[in-house]
């Protein structure tokens, strides 16, 4: 049995860590579909960045995507605060459709006005291309997950307080608005980092499935976030090996088995198994308060 390509392996681990971490936060904010929405709203950003600069370099496109994702994300947060009845998924659905419609209109404009538009580079930006993963992609994902992990770890108490009870956090003097904004920005950043590598279906699946899988077995914010992140990393590690195994036993020569869907199926199956399976009855020692009696 051959070993998987190093870049693919580390990209998968990075994606698992990153989306496990960010997913646990979006899960607690009751916005599991936000990743999907932000991924869609990157599309007009990619097109506009290309239209302005005429370049197809991943950095430029990623910058455009980030500006649009982050912007749309903040607009959603703002709309939900202004119109409470849009909470849940009203605002998300509105901006999802709005941004994607904007993307297709801009696309049709560009097709008419820009000559020699090779669409391959732009389309694959959205749909991901795990087969062509390079080392820089893996480093980006690992780096982003380190950065997000550092932030969440440093401000774990503020984040947990604000997500649980905003008013109370405000009274304690915790920086409510700033933390919420930074979390929004991190999600946009995470989405954009993974978009070219794993594609939007995979990333939205990971954002939802990983926290769901660990939620029944954890009782505290810290263990929940950590477990979700670690599970992501573990599934990310296993997936490329599984792909190789499947290819060697079922694949025909010349027809690869795509990595992304396997990743999704694994994460989802783990989530379903943990929802319906037995629960670990973990004696949490996270606080150490009730242990002695």
């Amino acid at each position, binding site marked *: 049995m051959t070993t998987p390509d190093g870049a693919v392996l580390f990209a998968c681990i990075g994606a698992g860590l990153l989306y496990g971490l960010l997913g646990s936060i979006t899960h607690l904010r009751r916005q599991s579909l936000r990743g999907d929405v932000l991924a869609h709203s990157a599309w007009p950003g990619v097109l506009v960045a290309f239209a302005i600069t005429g370049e197809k370099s991943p950095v430029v496109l990623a910058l455009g995507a980030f500006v649009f994702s982050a912007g749309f994300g903040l607009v959603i947060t703002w709309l939900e605060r202004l119109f409470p009845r849009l909470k849940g998924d009203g605002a998300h659905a509105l901006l999802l459709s709005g941004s994607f419609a904007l993307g297709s209109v801009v696309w049709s404009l560009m097709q008419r006005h820009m000559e020699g538009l090779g669409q391959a580079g732009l389309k694959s930006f959205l749909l991901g291309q795990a087969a062509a993963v390079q080392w820089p992609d893996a480093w980006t994902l690992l780096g982003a997950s380190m950065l997000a992990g550092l932030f969440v770890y440093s401000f774990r108490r503020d984040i947990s307080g604000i997500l649980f009870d905003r008013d109370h956090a405000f*009274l304690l003097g915790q920086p409510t608005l700033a933390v919420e904004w930074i979390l929004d920005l991190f999600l946009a950043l995470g989405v954009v980092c993974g978009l070219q590598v794993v594609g939007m279906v995979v990333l939205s699946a990971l954002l939802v499935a990983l926290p769901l899988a660990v939620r029944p077995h954890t009782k505290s914010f810290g263990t929940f976030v950590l477990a979700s992140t670690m599970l992501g990393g573990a599934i990310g590690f296993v997936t490329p090996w599984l792909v190789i195994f499947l290819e060697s036993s079922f694949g025909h020569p010349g027809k690869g088995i795509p990595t992304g869907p396997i990743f999704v199926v694994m994460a989802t199956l783990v989530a379903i198994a943990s929802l319906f399976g037995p629960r670990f009855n973990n004696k949490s020692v996270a606080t150490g308060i009730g242990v002695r009696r």
Partner: protein
Amino acid sequence: MAKEPLPPAEAVVRLEDVTVAYGDRPALWDVDLEIPKGSLTAVVGPNGAGKTTLMKTMLGLLKPATGRIEILGESLAHSKGKVAFVPQRSSVDWDYPATVGDLALMGTHGSLPWWKPVGKEEKRRAREALEMVDLVGLADRPINQLSGGQQQRAFLARALSQDAPLLVLDEPFQGIDASTERAILDLFRNLRRMGRSLIVVHHDLHTVRDLFDFSVLLNVRVVAAGPTESTLNEENLRATYGPRLGLDPRRAPHGPYDGARP
């Protein structure tokens, strides 16, 4: 019934000309109020009198239309973390991954800078708070597996562990059984003896008369405020609640530790 004499008047809360409106309907009208430091204060008034509004305004959760507010001699912006609050109805997500112990620890988080881990001192405070509300046995239970009264007690523990000089509690006894209520009232009196100030929205006028040393009678404006003996009289109550209410003189005052209630 032994009530300590009031400490020399130094205001823990001072409101001047405070008016709060929802839209153009004032819920609090021209409130001038000084609550002395180190007192156990009751805020009473009928439903819709603006008690919750008053508490939230004092804490800076609502912006007043006019007026000035001082907490512990400082403006609102500087008093963050020095006031502990138990809301009347908390709209938190009960499916949040937190245990009762975590909830009690959350009260201590305001005093910790972000780079410091939770230390022994914080754990001790949280544990003490849980002991006070008799929840130590449930410290490792997730909050979504609590009964309504236990949830309320957990919130009390969160406020207590904050070690704040001022505690503001909006109807803390809803859903709490009679004997626990007694225990917590005694706890309040102990805290007061230790020099804390407490402001409690409370509906049972008999307990107010027996246990609280300062009273604020509220109905959109302040009807009366002052030491309970002189303030909580028939005339003021009638002015607050309307003509049909008064204290029943035949009901005996509670002794401090008699436990049982009629």
